[in-house]
């Protein structure tokens, strides 16, 4: 394997024949993950992985191939496969690679040498420390399902026959724990994690505290009565919800008649309290990126401002077909062709604290977790029905725990029913910057 990933990618892209366009994405990385249980290492994984994806476009047709190796003979086979595959796709006048658009990228410092050279013993110690902290916080915690450390360092090169050649590299690390809390015959499981660019930026004390609280607060929970109420969502659950919404704002869904928001730019689609942008230029975010999956600069794209739909996200294909410009939102890895998506959701926070949000709710549910987001949410119809557990809010105070319930609405309705956004916005391990949220008038199904 050669040292200069970008040079290899450029050479492959440069092998485009007359009339062909070729682009190449190559990645390689190293990672470790440690799982501990009962103060002992359960598994220690050292991983090296690499990938290459080659796309060939000829006369409006696309061929693609990928492999999990950067060996020269494998890369040559991949190029040959991609070229052969071209003849089997159908002509599409809008197909093509991205043209350089002159937009400057924002550079992010995402590499940490200390993390790369970190002693394996220190990684094991970090996971054991997290397990020990977690088990020491509450006598009802009987142990963990697992406590884990993981870290990775990787680089991705993208080159195209249209003259784009970019390289991104970064390191990251994360910790996570799933404590089991027991009371009588009942067991509850909680989970929490943190992620950062360097080991020193992780907060194991908060992870342990959050995980234990999420497990113990559900003990004694029962099935609630069915009815309509408000829900209060923590920032990480707001992220789950807005992630679904941003998926409905991608140019591909709009073009292909799969987005209920098609044709609604400039219209009110949400509560005036809601303003959200996709902004991968924010270096504070773990999701910050300089270039999109077609080598164009990532940029800030407002999605919803004061409840009004600003626009859709595009890659170069959806932009060309919609007679607009790419928003730098191509998403892909070496194994896939470019899709469209949001990278870093940044929300305009409100004023009041999380406690004040709860105090303002007469009858509601403080949601602990969602279950079945993949099986109960349809991004085409907008139908939304998910399993929940959490703690009831009665007269502005947290009351009894509930489980085995669902909440249901539609995503379109949920956006309009946002009642308040908290002032507690924070950068999440997911890379998003989000605050707590209160949504009114949801159907709760229980007994």
């Amino acid at each position, binding site marked *: 394997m050669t040292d200069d990933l970008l040079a290899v990618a450029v050479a492959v892209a440069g092998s485009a024949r007359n009339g062909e366009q070729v682009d190449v994405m190559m990645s390689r990385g190293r990672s470790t993950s440690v799982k501990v*249980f009962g103060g002992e*290492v*359960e*598994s*220690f*994984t*050292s*991983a*090296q*992985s690499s990938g290459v994806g080659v796309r060939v476009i000829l006369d409006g047709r*696309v*061929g*693609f*191939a*990928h492999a*999990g*190796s950067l*060996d020269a003979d*494998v890369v040559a*086979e*991949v190029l040959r496969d991609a070229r*052969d*595959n071209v003849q*089997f*796709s*159908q002509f599409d006048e809008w197909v093509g690679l991205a043209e350089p658009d002159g937009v400057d990228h924002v550079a992010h410092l995402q590499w940490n040498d200390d993390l790369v050279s970190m002693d*394996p013993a220190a990684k094991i110690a970090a996971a054991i420390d997290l397990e020990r902290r977690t088990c020491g916080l509450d006598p009802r915690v*009987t*142990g963990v*399902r697992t406590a884990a450390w993981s870290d990775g360092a990787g680089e991705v090169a993208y080159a195209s026959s249209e003259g784009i050649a970019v390289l991104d590299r970064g390191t990251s690390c994360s910790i996570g724990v799933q404590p*089991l809390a027991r009371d009588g015959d*009942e067991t509850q*499981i909680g989970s929490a994690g943190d992620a950062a660019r360097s080991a020193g930026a992780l907060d194991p004390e908060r992870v342990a505290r959050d995980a234990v609280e999420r497990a113990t607060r*559900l003990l004694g929970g029962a099935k609630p009565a*069915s009815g309509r109420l408000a829900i209060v969502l923590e920032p990480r659950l707001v992220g789950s919800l807005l992630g679904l919404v941003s998926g409905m704002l991608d140019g591909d869904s709009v*073009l*292909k*008649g*799969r987005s209920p928001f098609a044709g609604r730019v400039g219209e009110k689609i949400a509560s005036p309290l809601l303003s959200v942008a996709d902004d991968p230029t924010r270096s504070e975010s773990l999701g910050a990126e300089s270039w999109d999956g077609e080598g164009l600069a990532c940029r800030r794209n407002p999605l919803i401002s004061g409840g009004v739909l600003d626009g859709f996200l595009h890659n170069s294909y959806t932009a060309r077909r919609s007679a607009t410009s790419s928003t730098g939102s191509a998403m892909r890895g070496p194994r896939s062709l470019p899709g469209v998506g949001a990278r870093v959701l940044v929300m305009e926070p409100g004023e009041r604290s999380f406690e004040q949000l709860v105090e303002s709710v007469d009858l509601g549910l403080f949601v602990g977790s969602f*279950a*079945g987001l*993949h*099986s*109960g949410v349809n991004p*085409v*119809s907008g*139908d939304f*029905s*998910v*399993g929940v*557990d959490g703690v009831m809010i009665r007269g502005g105070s947290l009351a009894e725990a509930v*489980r*085995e*319930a*669902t*909440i*249901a609405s539609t995503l379109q309705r949920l956006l309009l029913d946002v009642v308040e956004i908290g002032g507690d916005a924070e950068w999440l391990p997911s890379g998003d910057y989000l605050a707590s949220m209160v949504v009114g008038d949801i*159907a709760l*199904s*229980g007994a």
Partner: protein
Amino acid sequence: MPDLIDSETLQRVLGAALSTGAEWAEVFAEDRRSTGAVLDDGKVEELTSGRDRGAGIRVVVGDSTGFAHTSDLSEAALLETARIAAQAARGAGEAGRTVQLRAGESTLRPVGIYPDDIGKARKVELLTLADQAARTAGSGITQVTARYSDSRRRIQVANSEGIVVGDDQVRTLLSVSCVATGDTGMQTGRESVGHTIGFELFDRYDVEDLAATAAQRALTKLAARPAPSGQMTVVIGSGGGGVMFHEACGHGLEADLVEKGASVFAGRLGELVASPLVTLVDDGTLGGEWGNFGIDDEGHVAQRNVLIEDGVLVDYMWDGLRARKEGRTSSGNGRRQSYQHLPMVRMTNTYLLGGSDSPEDIIADTDSGVYIAHLGGGQVNTATGDFVFGMTEAYLIEGGRITEPLREGNLIGNGPAVLGNIDAVGNDFAMGPPGTCGKDGQGVPVGDGVPTLRVHGLTIGGTAA
């Protein structure tokens, strides 16, 4: 089939893996080729070829596992990878043991038609047929996506017990998703078929029928009303999907979760955990089903395992690691997504055996409730047993008759409670569509099946009062 790695090399690599005194070591090699084609918006958008090859090396000392993997199958790379794994799991045993390998039991089954022997043009043509059939099913159909994929996964497993064994797993899949548009907005319908067989899949199934079914599901839902909210009686249709059992108890019977007390079924062997009508089987041998294989990803021959018999919990599912600890044999449930992953306890094809009731009688005998013809995915919290699963095609039951279609949603229930509340099991068993089961970030192909059955006390997550 040529070996991915020859036996002499495997013996030397296992020697390196045991060089730090570990008790047990394994080399898992994999070569995977895949083809995928997507038709969307009336056009074949892409044809993709994929190739992945590599080996993962596992070294076990007591309860600790060291693991490393490489995409390079040269002896030098394998030896280096073995040393990295061995560094992560240092033992007190005799260093540098040598391993003599002998061929283990395998059950290689003949593949009818290797998908690689079929021209790409023929694969793409299936998608065009599906698109046309879906669009002619009704003027309300406004979008169609059809996907074809095939894969050939050759694996080889050698371990320090001296076993070397291989498998050749060929899977073929086709799915059709439709959008229907009407006065009430958009609705979707999907149908898929997938088996652990070759291109002869399309001798068994008619692509145009599949597409018409997907289209009809979407069109039907245009007239659907909001699903009810609250606890109701539910009838699940034959072959609609055994996802309910996969979630309600399947995951909770995985020995790795049981061992850690993270399952409501821990410590309940020999007890009545379900209605006496329930006999649940996990079966990796079932003729060509999606979750099948010859050997699992630890080299154990696929087995048929009865988990619950007449309501009594008979056994959990086991992988090699957990089985060795308990001094028993693996049940052939050690699976992994790829050579880059550690194996763990996973289901194969999980199904409820048929009973004696006629499906018509079960519905006629239900005064009010919901009939679910087709289930979506699901999720479970194994510690509490609370689980959800989606309904993608469902109807109201009123006065013993199936009436109006319902919009999509999740149902929620508690595994042990729901299993006890099954009061009718039909005589019309059928397998459901192919699925992918996710656990700790790894996806593996699984199958499921059920006869028509009735269960009380599930909560429907709709919006209607």
